[in-house]
């Protein structure tokens, strides 16, 4: 019985860490680009994940996660850096006031009739990579302890709980000015992208997963520094009165 609870709690907590990364990306992209395409991308990711898990089953632990992390990390990093840079420029130019969406230069939420493939792709990638990591955790712990059913409950439970928290918070996230949100999501994507790409190369981060918040602090400090520099540069260009 103790073993059963140990497997359940361990898989739940380990999966929750991955699910937080997944939900952070989905909520951030949804709030910035619009929810329809983001949720379809996330649902597509879960669909692919379900097929992969059903087809591969226990053989999942043999799928090479390193190259997958490298590819997804590099893609997230290069894309995230675009939003990171644009977010810095927009927040530096207009500050936090009056950027609630009326500015035509703001990163617009997708309003077209079709699919916003950028939002779809980002949500899809986030769900597939993090979902696969949850699946690895479940298979590894479950098979190791001979408690696969309990491990599945722990992993799925973590995704449902963290996803529910993300759903509850999405209205709060919507109230954040669009430019600031673009900057925040750019920083988050760059943080996870940096972390995964380096891990994918087989390079160990000092402190393991604890490097993620430290990277986040570094990139936030970078953003604040560049916003201040951009403001000073803009002020320096103003003609004397």
């Amino acid at each position, binding site marked *: 019985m103790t073993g059963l609870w140990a497997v359940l709690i361990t898989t739940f907590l380990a999966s929750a860490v991955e699910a937080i990364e997944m939900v952070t990306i989905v909520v951030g992209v949804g709030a910035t680009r619009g929810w329809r395409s983001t949720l379809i991308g996330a649902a597509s990711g879960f669909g692919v994940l379900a097929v992969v898990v059903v087809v591969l089953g226990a053989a999942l632990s043999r799928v090479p996660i390193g190259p997958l992390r490298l590819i997804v990390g590099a893609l997230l*990093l*290069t894309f995230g*850096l675009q939003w*990171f*840079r644009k977010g810095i420029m927009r927040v530096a130019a207009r500050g936090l006031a009056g950027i609630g969406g009326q500015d035509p230069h703001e990163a617009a939420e997708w309003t077209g009739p079709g699919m916003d493939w950028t939002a779809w792709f980002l949500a899809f990638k986030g769900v597939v990579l993090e979902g696969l990591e949850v699946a690895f955790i479940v298979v590894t712990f479950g098979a190791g302890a001979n408690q696969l059913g309990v491990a599945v409950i722990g992993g799925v439970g973590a995704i449902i709980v963290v996803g529910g928290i993300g759903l509850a918070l999405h209205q709060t996230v919507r109230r954040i000015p669009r430019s600031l949100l673009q900057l925040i999501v750019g920083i988050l994507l760059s943080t996870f992208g940096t972390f995964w790409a380096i891990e994918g190369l087989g390079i160990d981060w000092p402190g393991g997963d604890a490097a993620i918040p430290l990277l986040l602090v570094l990139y936030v400090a*970078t953003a604040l520094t560049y916003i201040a*520099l951009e403001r000073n540069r803009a002020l320096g260009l103003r003609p004397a009165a």
Partner: protein
Amino acid sequence: MPPPFSWIVAVAKFLYDFIVGDDWTVAAAVGIGLILSAILNANHIVAWWLIPVIVVGMLGVSLRRASRRSR
């Protein structure tokens, strides 16, 4: 352009805009940084710091270039 080619061009254009965006030097720097990190790691040299340094440095370069363009 007939459909199969126009689709390929559209997909290639989407992927370029999505991944590279309007400043190709940032994507190139990340790619070179990853290759250098792999080389350093293969030679047993600590390499985790390189990409964060490139991110911070290239952001500054790209911002400077963008603000020059907007003048």
